């Protein structure tokens, strides 16, 4: 598949938060958060409930605006863009919501085709692209079903298919494995690996499950073998390329508590971080 949108190769980093602050009536949730995600990198956002993980994703997608600070995505300052420009810009970003957020009045096929229908793509072009996206998540047979007829894991997979339909260079995942059984979670992680390793997607992934992040750091999708393999095999080392592509950022009390690679996180002496490792 070819990218339907401009490459972000001339933009570095892909996502950048500069001293971002946002809050509600209850108080500030993020208090001057700064981090960046390089192109083709996966940044795993960790944190307890209410620490601003989902908020960070929504800020990156321009669905919310920070009180102060700057959010840049693909070189554009989304924190100051007009809603009209944002609507156009968001077509370059895939967003996988926590519960899938599929349109329940539409079939799976229409859900996946939604973006193409909005763009006025011809019907004869839509069908093969929808089937291709659904084939990617191994749910081709569900095209005529409604979301209510799918299991939780299947809904997340359809949501991933919907996010990748126009090959966005950035995909934002909001707790993609939350509430799923271990086997289904593995399937979702395998799909995220495929998106990353086959299409070179830059990802910001919010999760409470550290094992998801470690899986992303330790495994990769081998396009030749068409399966997930350990990064240490086939010339990749656990401390080499794959670790550089997956970093971890822990949010706590409105700020960045930890930022670094898998080895730093797994060998931490910090009591708070150790709670994630249990």
């Amino acid at each position, binding site marked *: 598949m070819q990218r339907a949108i401009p490459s972000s190769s001339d933009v570095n980093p892909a996502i950048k938060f500069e001293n971002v602050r946002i809050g509600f009536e*209850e*108080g500030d949730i993020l208090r001057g958060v700064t981090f960046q995600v390089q192109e083709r990198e996966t940044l795993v956002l960790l944190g*307890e409930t209410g620490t601003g993980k989902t908020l960070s994703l*929504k800020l990156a*997608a321009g*669905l919310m605006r920070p009180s102060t600070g700057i959010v840049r995505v693909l070189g554009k300052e989304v924190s100051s863009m007009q*809603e*009209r420009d944002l*609507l*156009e810009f*968001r*077509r370059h*970003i895939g*967003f996988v*919501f*926590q*519960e899938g*957020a*599929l*349109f*329940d009045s539409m079939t799976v096929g229409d859900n996946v085709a*939604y*973006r193409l229908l*909005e763009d006025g793509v011809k019907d004869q072009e839509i069908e093969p692209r929808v089937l291709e996206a659904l084939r990617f998540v191994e749910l081709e047979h569900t095209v005529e079903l409604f979301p209510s007829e799918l299991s939780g894991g299947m809904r997340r997979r359809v949501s991933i298919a*919907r996010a990748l339909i126009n090959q966005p260079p950035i995909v934002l995942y909001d707790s993609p494995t939350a509430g799923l059984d271990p086997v289904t979670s593995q399937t979702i992680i395998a799909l995220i690996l495929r998106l990353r390793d086959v299409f070179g997607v830059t990802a910001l992934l919010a999760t409470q499950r550290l094992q998801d992040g470690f899986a992303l750091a330790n495994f990769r999708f081998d396009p030749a073998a068409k399966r997930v393999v350990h990064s240490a095999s086939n010339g990749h080392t656990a401390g080499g390329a794959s670790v550089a592509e997956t970093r971890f950022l822990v949010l*706590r*009390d*409105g700020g960045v508590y930890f930022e670094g690679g898998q080895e730093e996180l797994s060998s931490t002496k910090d009591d708070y971080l150790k*709670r994630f490792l249990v």
Partner: protein
Amino acid sequence: MADTPLQIADREAKAEERITVTGVLVDAVKGAVASVQEYALLCGRTLYALFTPPYYLQDILQQMDSIGAGSLPIILLSGFFIGAVMVLQTGSQFTRFGQSSLTGDVVAIALVRELGPSLTGLLVTGRCATGIASELGSMLVTEQVDAMRAMGTNPIRKLVAPRVIATLLMLPLLTAMTDFTGLIGGCVASVFSLRLTAIEFWRRAIDALDFADLMQGFTKPFFFAFILATIGCYKGLTVRGGTQGVGRATTQAAVLSSVLIIVADAFLTKVALYLADKLF
């Protein structure tokens, strides 16, 4: 899991805040002003979307079917019996003065000018404003509205404008149906209760109506349609508090649009009577 220092600090800070009557009143006024501002913004954006492309024709047709055809049974049934009840109530008074034939005049004027538009507005509010609020509210709490925005779609154009357009087109037609079935109901009641002939009833009813009455009766539904559709959308798109919030928003949509329709009716009647006096 133990509380973080931030959570503990926040709790202590909140405990120190003292609740006063003035504080509660100020918060309530601020909240009300903010709501009016949000609603005005939604109305402004909706009006802009009504007059500028793109339009979602498929969604407009779906909503026209749901709001128009879907409301038809309750409109026909209610209209018929409202007309009949009016004849029964007024007929007994007119009979005392030997003027039972005047019931046709009264029913026609009351239905076309006032009862048709307002009762249709209230009935459609009960059915559709609540439906709109609960549908959009459910979409909001399940992040479907955010998903729509994330995929580059303006929810005002996709969700609000089709519902407003469909209501604007359907409510005047439903009002006409209420008026017509109301007159049929009145005719039936007149024939069986007051021993009037159907021809006499219809002749009096039609003769009693002026162009100004029709103008008044068919202008009001456009305002009522805008009120009930925008209030339904506003309440749906500002839901707070999950599924419980959806229920609350649905109730608020019904109450608020009903009250606003009645208030607007009073002002519109005054304006219509003034214009009728000046123009016709």
